[in-house]
């Protein structure tokens, strides 16, 4: 009997155990999934929660409800992975041996990594919205905030859902406008990038949308520290941005157990072959979702598309055949832009987001890089698909690899 161990029952890990249980013979492979708790958080909902559009209880489900029969569950914290002994050591002293290992331990926000970010001001006038606790505290603050300087800030890349800070900014603009308070709020978007987004054409489109909404951008801002008492962000090259309300995306890092295992880079992400999804230097360790260092978005869509490729490669690999599938970095993200509208972007390692229609050329119903009501409804409807199709490993009505069909080629100016 062989053993497949999956670390993490988040989006990637849950999908994988569902897909593989039906593809691996039960008398040949035991599957075990390890996670520290039994709460699965629907992370896309955290974006809308601060604006009062979500109830926290609607974003949580039990992880165990999505683990299929025939998969063992271990609820414990991971100490480290001993790759030489092919064993996962748990903090409670137990050891879980494996023949094949999937690391899907994700990415976490780390406010402790920026000097001055934590303190009395944390969740009072400095907030994150990437945790349930932070999003709820921010919701309560926004409800009666009198106005002033709102600063939306990204510490460094990579981050989970790289469009979320922009979406938050668009939604904040709409939130205050709909309440007749927009004139009392000055919004600034502070980023370590040289523009609104990472890819030139999308950056130009999204930068234009910020300008149209009267939102200023402070680019190339590499934060040195937060001065909580004086309420300002200070950069490494001594620039200052004052705020009354700071909404920051703290540094994103992989799990500490990756660092303890000596398997991570400087941010605890695991160096991973971007096409096969095997950890670099191993033939029995795979990395899926946000835990890897592949140059793709840390997003559920990437976890989904890469999991499809992984399953085929994994089955070939364990039967001693060459791996014939290659992940292309496909990502597909809805971008909420406020007032019931949204955009959609679809891209991969080699092709940046382009305008067009998706998934059916000319028809859509979704518009690429262009605001529409359909995109907003697509984002809201996605939640049903997430719980009922995606996590359970059932087919989703979109292609795994990116297609150029329906996209208009455009040159960045």
């Amino acid at each position, binding site marked *: 009997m062989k053993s497949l161990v999956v670390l993490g029952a988040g989006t990637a890990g849950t999908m994988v155990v569902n897909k593989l249980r039906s593809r691996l013979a039960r008398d040949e492979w035991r599957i075990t999934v390890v996670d520290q708790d039994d709460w699965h958080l629907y992370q896309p909902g955290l974006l809308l929660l601060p604006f009062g559009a979500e109830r926290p209880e609607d974003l949580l489900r039990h992880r165990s409800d999505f683990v299929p029969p025939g998969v063992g569950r271990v609820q414990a914290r991971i100490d480290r992975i001993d790759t030489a002994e092919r064993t996962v050591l748990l903090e409670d002293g137990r050891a879980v041996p494996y023949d094949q290992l999937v690391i899907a331990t994700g990415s976490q926000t780390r406010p402790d990594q920026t000097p001055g970010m934590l303190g009395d001001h944390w969740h009072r006038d400095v907030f994150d919205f990437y945790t349930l606790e932070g999003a709820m505290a921010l919701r309560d603050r926004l409800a009666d905030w009198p106005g002033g300087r709102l600063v939306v800030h990204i510490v*460094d*890349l*990579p*981050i989970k859902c*790289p469009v979320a800070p922009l979406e938050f900014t668009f939604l904040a603009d709409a939130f205050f406008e709909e309440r007749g308070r927009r004139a009392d709020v000055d919004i600034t978007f502070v980023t*370590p*990038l*040289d523009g609104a987004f*990472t*890819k030139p054409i999308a950056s130009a489109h999204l930068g234009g949308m910020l300008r149209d909404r009267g939102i200023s951008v402070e680019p*190339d801002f*590499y934060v*040195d520290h937060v001065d909580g008492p004086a309420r300002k962000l200070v950069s*490494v*090259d001594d620039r200052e941005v004052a705020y009354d309300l700071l909404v920051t995306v703290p540094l994103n890092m992989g799990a500490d157990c990756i660092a303890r295992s000596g398997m991570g*880079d*400087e*941010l605890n992400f695991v*160096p991973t072959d971007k096409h096969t999804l095997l950890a670099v230097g191993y033939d029995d360790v795979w990395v899926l979702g946000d835990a890897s260092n592949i*140059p*793709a*978005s840390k997003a559920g869509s990437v976890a989904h598309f890469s999991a499809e490729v992984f399953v085929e490669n994994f089955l070939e690999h364990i039967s001693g055949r060459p791996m014939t599938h290659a992940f292309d*970095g496909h*990502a597909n993200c809805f971008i909420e832009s406020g007032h019931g509208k949204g955009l959609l972007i679809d891209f991969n390692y080699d092709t940046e987001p382009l305008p067009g229609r998706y998934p059916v050329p000319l028809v859509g119903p979704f518009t690429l890089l262009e605001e529409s009501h359909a995109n907003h409804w697509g984002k809201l409807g996605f939640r049903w698909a997430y719980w009922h199709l995606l996590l359970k490993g059932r087919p989703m009505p979109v292609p795994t690899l990116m297609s150029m069909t329906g996209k208009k080629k455009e040159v960045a100016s």
Partner: protein
Amino acid sequence: MTVTDIAGRTVHVDSEGFLTDPSEWDEELAKALAEQIGITLTEEHLRMLRFLRADFTTTHETATTRRVQAVGGFPVKQQFALFPQKPAKKMAYVAGLPKPHGCV
């Protein structure tokens, strides 16, 4: 991909002027590249560039500002002092490496 002449040498560059063939680089060329963006190279600059070059040979990715600090041991403040405003981009340019894709 375009071909251009820098310091009397023919090199291959992308649309933004980043070298596309790291093997065409040496420290002489680095001096010329640095001058193009208004930087006079010192030994301090060169130590940073050597780290970036060595790191690239193992990772095949241009090191980020954070990595240059964490792995190379050059504080971010020093990177900003030597390559002002946009150190990651400028270091990559002068080191003859691909523009860091900052992320996605």
